[in-house]
């Protein structure tokens, strides 16, 4: 009896317990609701007079005040981004009845550059009604033209605003970046309150990655408005208005100034030396990771973005065959060619797989045991007897084919990884490519077809001269060269060396960030490889000698020539361009002064032909710049 009834009684008891709890909760619900109702009665019945006055009578509106964007300086204090006063056309959305009509009329009067009206209208609508929205910038004559017609455009106003200006135009654009109008995509990620009075935002480069520092903090000003939202009293427009009781003003905090690691002398010299050629130049201070120059050509004028780029101009930029918007220095991936020979030489020394004094005969080609396939040297007749030193100096391919095979792809790959290849360097702007250091594992993951996943010995051979699957960015190449120059020490590349408070003028320095260096068993290996690089520029057979003749400093370097193995999709229809774009890429790396390096540089000239003729002169121009040497002839033009 007891046993059979037990579950039943339990059930009853549980249900009872549950019921009591539900009743407690129901009472709680009623109590809380009563509390809410009480509060509502208090607000809506008892105090309604007070709140109605606040709402119906004169009211206070909070208008945002935009902070002044921080300036950008180069390392020597030259101004590379400033703010200039300019007339702007602004819209107050809630005061415009027919937005599309108004925008159309403005466009007919040539007061709006040929932007997409629909997108502009959407941007205006996405703002809160009382937020002033900047439609575009006006020239003096446009402003005058609008001023006489102002009465026809309620809700549209002229205001003097600050617009970003880049004195060096395109010369620094791929490092500094640019600002542009805030897009609907930007609105998704920013704090709308902070940007309530701001019309431009950093889009690329330093302008983007240090946006929060440069932007500053928004301020507010309270205005008295009537029930229709018209401003009755604005403290900013009346003398002594700030003292008005109840009307508060919080001044915006201007953005901080940013000091770049860039040296504009080098930046300009590099851009001039590149001329109309496509390519990239990166110069790094091996002692700190400071980027002294970061150039990608062709560039473009960031002032056009800041002033409001028309749609047609933007399309022209994006469809340009030379792709000026593309940052080759950070995201361009190139086979590094012979420029990695010194690093491979170091790896082989460290690994003990090469005897630096032993000569190997170079007869113009290399064959793998048991194969007849000939891997050719760039010099058809061969280099004769070569040791490690002379093989680097003369850039003998056959010597490095053998070296790569004896080192093996696994060690070869890991040594290149230690120099920073195959992974982003961690520079403080976005858009960096990782590049590729090929390995057995990489190949397995890269290809779907099992037959393609096998690593072939021949792929190791060509990896010895930086060809095949390997891809490096110009930034990685400069970074690795800096590591060679600093005997293995590596710093995270950086564009910002400090910030300066716009109000107090206090300078805050950013410390260089040292990262894992390249470790070798015997420090003497560094000297051996570096001596060979000195030979490249100083010995009679050195491939970089011509370009570096007569420098007032000692320089070490290496040149490279990389085959263009594939034709881009866009190019193949353009008969005239095909030949030019199939030419080899010219590469050059260098560091100076030899004994205590202060600068390491990497240059890539797309389709420029040989590295010693196309790229090394550009490296020379960069190295010369700090000495005030400009244009040492037209040989490279």
């Amino acid at each position: 009896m007891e046993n059979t009834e037990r579950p039943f009684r339990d059930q009853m008891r549980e249900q009872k317990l549950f019921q009591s709890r539900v009743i407690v909760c129901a009472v709680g619900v009623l109590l809380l609701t009563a509390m809410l109702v009480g509060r509502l009665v208090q607000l809506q019945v008892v105090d309604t007079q007070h709140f109605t006055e606040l709402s119906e009578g004169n009211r206070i509106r909070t208008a945002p005040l935009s902070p002044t964007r921080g300036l950008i300086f180069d390392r020597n204090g030259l101004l590379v981004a400033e703010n200039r006063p300019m007339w702007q056309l602004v819209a107050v959305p809630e005061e415009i009845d027919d937005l599309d009509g108004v925008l159309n009329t403005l466009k007919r009067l040539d007061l709006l550059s040929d932007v997409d009206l629909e997108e502009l209208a959407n941007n205006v609508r996405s703002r809160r009604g009382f937020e002033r929205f900047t439609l575009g910038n006006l020239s003096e004559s446009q402003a005058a033209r609008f001023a006489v017609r102002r009465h026809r455009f309620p809700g549209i106003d002229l205001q003097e605003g600050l617009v970003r200006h880049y004195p060096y135009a395109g010369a620094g654009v791929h490092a500094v970046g640019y600002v542009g109008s805030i897009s609907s995509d930007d609105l998704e990620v920013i704090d709308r309150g902070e940007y309530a009075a701001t019309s431009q935002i950093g889009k690329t480069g330093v302008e983007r990655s240090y946006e929060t520092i440069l932007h500053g903090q928004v301020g507010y000003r309270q205005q008295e408005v009537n029930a229709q939202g018209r401003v009755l009293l604005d403290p900013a427009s009346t003398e002594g208005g700030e003292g008005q009781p109840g009307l508060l003003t919080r001044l915006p905090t201007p953005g901080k100034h940013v000091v770049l690691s860039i040296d504009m002398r080098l930046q300009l010299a590099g851009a001039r030396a590149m001329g109309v050629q496509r390519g990239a130049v990166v110069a790094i201070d091996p002692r700190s990771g400071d980027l002294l120059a970061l150039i990608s050509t062709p560039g473009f004028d960031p002032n056009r973005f800041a002033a409001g780029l028309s749609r047609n101009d933007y399309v022209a930029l994006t469809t340009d065959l030379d792709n000026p918007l593309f940052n080759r220095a950070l995201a361009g991936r190139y086979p590094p060619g012979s420029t990695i020979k010194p690093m491979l030489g170091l790896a082989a020394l460290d690994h003990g797989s090469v005897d630096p004094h032993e000569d190997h005969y170079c007869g113009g080609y290399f064959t793998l045991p048991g194969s007849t396939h000939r891997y050719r040297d760039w010099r058809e007749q061969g280099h004769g007897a070569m040791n490690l030193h002379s093989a680097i100096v003369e850039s003998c391919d056959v010597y490095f084919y053998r070296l790569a095979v004896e080192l093996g792809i696994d060690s070869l790959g890991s040594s290149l990884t230690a120099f920073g290849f195959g992974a982003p360097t961690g520079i403080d702007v976005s858009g960096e490519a990782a590049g590729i250091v090929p390995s057995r594992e990489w190949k397995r993951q890269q290809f779907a077809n099992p037959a393609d996943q096998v690593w072939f010995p021949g792929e190791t051979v060509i990896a010895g001269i930086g060809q095949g699957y390997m891809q490096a960015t110009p930034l990685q190449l400069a970074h690795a060269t800096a590591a060679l120059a600093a005997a293995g020490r590596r710093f995270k590349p950086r564009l910002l060396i400090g910030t300066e408070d716009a109000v107090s003028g206090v300078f805050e320095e950013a410390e260089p960030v040292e990262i894992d260096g390249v470790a070798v068993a015997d420090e003497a290996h560094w000297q051996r490889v570096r001596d060979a690089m000195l030979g490249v520029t100083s010995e009679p057979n050195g491939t970089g000698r011509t370009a570096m003749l007569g420098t007032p400093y000692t320089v070490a370097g290496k040149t490279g020539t990389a085959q263009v193995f594939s034709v881009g999709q866009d190019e193949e229809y353009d008969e005239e361009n095909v030949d030019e774009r199939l030419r080899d890429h010219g590469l050059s790396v260098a560091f100076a002064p030899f004994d205590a390096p202060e600068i390491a540089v990497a240059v890539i000239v797309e389709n420029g032909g040989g590295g010693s003729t196309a790229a090394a002169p550009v490296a020379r121009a960069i190295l010369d710049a700090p000495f005030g040497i400009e244009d040492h002839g037209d040989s490279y033009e």
Partner: protein
Amino acid sequence: MLAITGFGFIVLYSAVGENGSLLLRQAVRCGVGFCAFLVLAQVPPKYFRVWTPWVFCGVFGLLLLVMIDGQVGKGAQRWLSLGVVSIQPSEFMKLAVPLMVAWFMHDRSLPPTLPQVTALVLIVLVPALLIARQPDLGTALLVVAAGGLTILLTGVSKRIIAAVGVVGLVSAPIAWQFMFDYQRARVFTFLSPESDPLGAGYNIIQSKIAIGSGGIFGKGWLNGTQAHLEFLPERSTDFIFAVMAEEFGLMGLLLLLALYLVLVGRGLYIALAAQDTFTRLVAGSLTLTFFVYVFVNAGMVCGLLPIVGVPLPLVSAGGTSMVTLMAGFGMLAAISGQKKRLAA
């Protein structure tokens, strides 16, 4: 069912003070939510019980995913992008936690023993802490509330309740240490909104003006000056209650609250009539959680509670919360249907 008529009514309210594409998007979400409601209402409740652990683990996995790979919006990492739509897994947790608690207690006899209570508290707190780290304190507290109410319904003894209360009070200063600055600012603002009228206190001041100026009968539909002159922030989401207060006055709000109470009453009735521990607990906790949302949102808008980002159930624009709520009501309807089937 009575619940459905309640919906249609309240959802129509959301048209107030909005327009165009926003309304359309809300209608679509509402449609999705309603589908979820209809589908779930057809499912026999025992399947809910079977699915519960999987759902819980799935949502928990999504939460972990958000931590690793979430989209950062307005400084907090809580969105997960799934191709076309972004979802907020923490919203689903509000549903999954009470389900899990109910599942855990189903085969055990009530009231739970101390070790069982400890297990239950873990079920609630672990996801809540993950959400709090996103950081989304509001949702985390609601998950705790949902789970806590379920535990309360299991009939846990008064002594344990008192002990938890004491622990809560003691840990408050410790929690303060771990809070983000903006969260602390919200608490300060709640205590004294006038101290920062331009910044953090702005929302609550404007919201109170909107409610107060509405009076007994309101300013009339589309005539709310606070809302339409855009003094009021987040009008279509968290502060929609203030818009209604301004335009429909006390009368409108009382009607709305009455409708909510009817829903809550109906839910509690379903819970009382439910057949087994699982459905009983689920129905009870879903209903009470629903009320907590209403109370927290209304309370925050009229200055009774600090500002936490809690939407007004079934009215505020916002996708995940709408779908979650509708799914909850679908389960309620299913539980109530189960009784009828058994009776027939």
